[in-house]
Structures are given as C-alpha cells and as structure tokens.
C-alpha cells in the first residue's frame, strides 16, 4: 500500500516530483560524471606511464628547435629529426646504461587512413623494450618488413592496408589506448621505416634529403642499470655526449601528473560544491513539502497509520525520487562523457582513457548507492518530523 500511495503522491504532483528528480539527477551527474573523468584521466596517465618503458630518452639537440623535448610523447604534431647512429653507441657506453634501443621517426604528410598526418616510428625488435611489450598484448608473431602496428585512434581500412608515400603497409595489430599522441602513431621495424623514409625522399617530401637511413636514428631509449640513479645517468650523458639531449622519461609525464592532480582537485571541489548545494536545497525542499503535506499525514494518522508507516511513506517517496533522479543523472553523465572522450582529451590536453565497462558499471553502482544514501539521510529528518505530528492539533490548525 505504501508503494502505491507513494506512487500516487508522486504522479499526482508532477511538477514537484520533477523538481526533486532534477536535484537528485544533479547529484548523480556530478559525482558519477566527475568520478568518471578523474578515473579516465588517471587511467590515461597510468597507461602512458606503462607505455614509456624507458628511463631516459635521448634525442638530437636540434630537436629542441622543433618542440619542447619534454612534450615528445604528447605533442600532437608529428615531426622528424635525425642524428648519427654513432651517438647511440656513445650513449650505450656510458656508465649506468643497461640497455639501449633506437627509434627512427618519420611524419607522414597526409595519409589516406587518417584525418591528420601520423607519426611513423621505426623500432628495432631485436633491442626494443618499449613497443613490443605493448604490442604483445594483441600480437605475438614476428613483425616483418612492411608490417605495422597502429595506435588505437588510427582508422584501419577493411583490407588492413595503409599506404604511406605509395608504400603499402600491412596492419598486423592495433595497440591499446594510452590517451596520448602515441595513439595516433604507426610502428614498424627498422627496414619498414627505412623504406618509407627513402620513399619520402624520392618524392621530395622529406627535408633531410641527404640522410642515409641505415646510419641515422631519431631517439635512443635507455634502461638504467639497477643501483644507478636515473638523474645521475641522464646528467652524465648530457655532460659527456655532445649534440644530444637526454631527458628523463618520467619528466615527460610529470607535467601531466601535475595537471591531472590539479584537474582532480578541481573536479572534486566541483562535486563537493554541487553536493553541498543540492543536498541543502533538497533538505529545504523536503522540509517545505512535508510542511505543506502535514495535514495529509495527520489524516493518515487519524485513519490508523503508525508513525513507522508515515516515516516509511516519506522514505519510500524520497527513495523513488532519488532512484529516478540518480539513474537519469548517471545516464546523462554517460552521454556527456563517453561519446566526447576524444574532445575532452583534446580540450584538457591530458591523456584520457575511459575505464572498461565493468569498472564503469561499478562506478555507476557506487554513484547510485551514494545518491540513494544521501537522499535517504536528507529525507530521514523530514520522515522523523512527520512521524511526530500531533494529528489532533494539526487538523485543527488547518481548519
């Protein structure tokens, strides 16, 4: 009966019910949407961290003129720069360096596969310790000449062939998302990238016309030996190897981590403000509504409703409103975040990776629980007051 009466009360006053549902929706939207944003940003950072693999990255000093080396991983515009392979040997010889692996970069000017030019990265499968562990999540075969791995944001044609500088490349795997510019990059072995660079030179589309592709590298990725301080090894390279810049890989994402922390604080503040405001408004709204309906509750007492039944009626109405509002808020947050994750990533300039469906569901359930609990707490006060009405005085007051 309580449920039916609650339903009648809610549907009998659609305006009042809609206003309460809207408040509950705000609560759910802010906490679910905000938490989803924070979680996605955190996941983006974690993914990027996991993908770095290297302790130090060495690039030619000339690369500095093209972009901030610290933004190497995140800068959106593909670029290319080269240094003699001998620098890799010099770097590898420094104390504390355990392993080095070279990469060769090429920017495609326009590719049929993508709406924007992509960064093409050549790596050496024999020495690589950053790309292959990532690729192994989806592809375990040997990566041969002409085979490429593509980032998660690269559109792959149905035939699996991407053409760069009139060279056909076979897409063998698509990598998991990092939320960085790595997601729009293409990866191949040294032979593949050398062939592409040569093709770009033939077409006059590469400013480095004179380079011998088998004698140059773009970046040297370094793993530091256990027991050595990464900072010391980096400084040692910068001091003793000329015409290169060594950068700590973690510094490349420290800015992101700082931005993420700032953004998380901002979102948390936003959630707290919305909750404080909505809960206060909700408490006042409930109190006003209960006051308006006190005669109705007095009548129910006269007809034999116990204090517990009255409290149950108030609580069930509040629960229905909060459930409806929370579901609407969660749905709205999903609609606002999921389809626009790429735009959010671009807007914030931070890696943004939506968690898997299971975690999103878990987060939605937690948000729903939080909204229902908060709504129940707010309405409980009104429920207690309602259950204490003196029906004899109340009815007389009203007449």
């Amino acid at each position, binding site marked *: *009966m309580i449920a*039916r*009466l609650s339903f*009648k*009360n809610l*549907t*009998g*006053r659609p305006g009042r019910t809609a206003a309460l549902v809207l408040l509950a929706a705000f609560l759910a939207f802010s906490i679910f949407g905000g938490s989803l944003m924070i979680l996605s940003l955190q996941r983006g950072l974690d993914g990027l961290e996991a993908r770095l693999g290297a302790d130090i990255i060495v690039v030619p000093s000339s690369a500095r003129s093209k972009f901030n080396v610290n933004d190497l991983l995140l800068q959106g515009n593909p670029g290319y720069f080269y240094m003699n392979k001998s620098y890799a040997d010099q770097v590898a010889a420094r104390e504390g360096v355990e392993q080095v692996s070279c990469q060769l970069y090429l920017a495609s000017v326009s590719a049929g596969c993508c709406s924007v030019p992509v960064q093409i990265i050549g790596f050496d499968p024999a020495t690589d310790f950053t790309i292959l562990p990532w690729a192994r999540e989806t592809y375990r075969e040997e990566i041969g000449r002409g085979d490429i791995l593509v980032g998660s944001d690269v559109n792959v044609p149905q035939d699996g062939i991407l053409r760069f500088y009139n060279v056909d490349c076979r897409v063998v795997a698509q990598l998991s998302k990092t939320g960085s510019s790595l997601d729009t990059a293409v990866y191949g072995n040294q032979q593949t990238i050398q062939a592409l660079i040569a093709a770009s030179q033939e077409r006059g589309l590469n400013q480095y016309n004179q380079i011998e592709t088998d004698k140059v590298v773009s970046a040297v990725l370094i793993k530091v030996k256990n027991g050595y301080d990464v900072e010391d090894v980096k400084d040692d390279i910068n001091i003793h190897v000329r015409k290169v810049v060594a950068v700590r890989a973690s510094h490349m994402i420290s800015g992101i981590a700082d931005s993420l922390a700032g953004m998380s604080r901002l979102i948390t503040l936003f959630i707290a403000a919305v909750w404080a405001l909505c809960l206060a408004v909700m408490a006042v709204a409930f109190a006003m509504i209960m006051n308006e309906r006190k*005669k*109705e509750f007095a*009548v*129910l*007492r*006269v*007809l*034999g*409703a*116990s*204090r*517990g*039944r009255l409290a149950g009626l108030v609580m069930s109405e509040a629960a229905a409103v909060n459930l409806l509002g929370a579901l609407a808020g969660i749905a709205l947050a999903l609609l606002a975040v999921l389809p626009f994750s790429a735009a959010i990533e671009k807007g914030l300039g931070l890696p943004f990776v939506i968690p898997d469906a299971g975690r999103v569901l878990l987060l939605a359930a937690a948000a729903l629980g939080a909204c229902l609990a908060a709504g129940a707490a707010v309405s409980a006060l009104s429920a207690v007051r309602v259950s204490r009405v*003196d*029906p*004899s005085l109340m*009815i*007389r007051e*009203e*007449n």
Partner: protein
Amino acid sequence: MLRAEGVLKHYDRLRGSSNYFCALQKLDFALEPGRVTEITGRSGSGKSTLLNILAGLLRPTEGKVRLEQTDLYALPDGELSRLRNRAIGVVPQGQTGLRSLTVLENVLLPWQLYSRGHAPAARARELLERVGIADLEQVRIGELSGGEMRRMAIARALIMQPAVLLADEPTGDLDDENTAAVLRLMRDTAREGTAVLLVTHEAEAARYADAVYRMEAGALSLQAAK
C-alpha cells in the same frame, strides 16, 4: 464498549511551570454499541479534545481510555494505530481528503493501510451511495465542494465497519437535505451495532441521538437521555 475513566487534559502554558490551561476537566464517559451519543457546546469548550482522546490520538494528562478491556494509551504506537484503523472510525473536522487520490481511493484508504488483496470497492460504492456522492467516485478530492468532502470523510470512516464511530462536526458545510441524510446514516450505523459519537452544533442532531451531553469549559454534563 469505549470508556473514558477519570480522564482530564491540561496544556502547560509554560513548560515546567504550574501555569496550565485545563482543556478537559476530570470526567467519566462511555459510548455504547447501538447508541448515538451527541455532545454539543461552544467552540473551544473541549468537545474535540474529548473526541481526540477517545480516538487514541491525544494522550490525556490523567485517566484511561478503554476499548472493551484494552487500555488504548498503554499500547505501543503500532498496535494503537492498528486498533484505531480496525475498530475506531473517525470523521475529523474540516477538509481531510488526500488530494492525490480520487474519492473512491480516499474511501478505501483505511483498508489499504494494512490489508492485502482485493479492496472492498463494493462496500465503498455503497457508502458513497448512502452519503449521496456515488457519481463522484472517480473525481479527485480537489474538485469536491466542502460538503461533498465531509460526506466522503463519513464514508471513509465507515469503510472498516468500525465498532466505534467518532464524528467531529459531520454535518458542517452541509445543506438541510444532506444534513438529514448524514444524521440518518449515523442512526442506521448505530442500529447495525456501532457506538456513535456526534460532536456537533447541529440542533437537528438531537432528534437522532440517544443521549445528549453539553460541554462547557471542559466540563461535561448530561442534558437528555432516552
């Protein structure tokens, strides 16, 4: 049936002080099955206070109220509420319908508070017929006149076939014709075995009552008895 024993009611004017207002002087009073008892008196004389005490809605300062052998105010709230729902029909003063419900739903409300299964819609319709608003059963309460609302409240008080009916100004807002119909219904209800209390200013009510009391300044005195 329903008996007030040594009941009195004071309201403290100032909490904890000896300054109080005496709403009801110490009295003994009883309602018997099959009899209509009327209480008249000026507004504020204590009539409604006594009715609310008899209904288990207002705890007396002193004394007991017994329904058969049960001391109402010794019961916990849940049991007292259920007892009131089952055995005591109350017609409160004024407009007391739930606005979100139709007339028929309002009449069935006491039954729906604790019962399951099919509601006694046929009895509800019969009662609406007897109070003359059968054609309004699907109308929402907000669309009723004051008199129609009073008649709905009477039908609602009778839906559970209570052992006791306590009616506070049941003929308020009614024209002469409907006043007579309601008073006849009260009389018929008593004839079916219910103990009926009418608290009213209506002079005509005395014709239908077995006993008439007058309340003055919280003191009850018997005026006439058959």
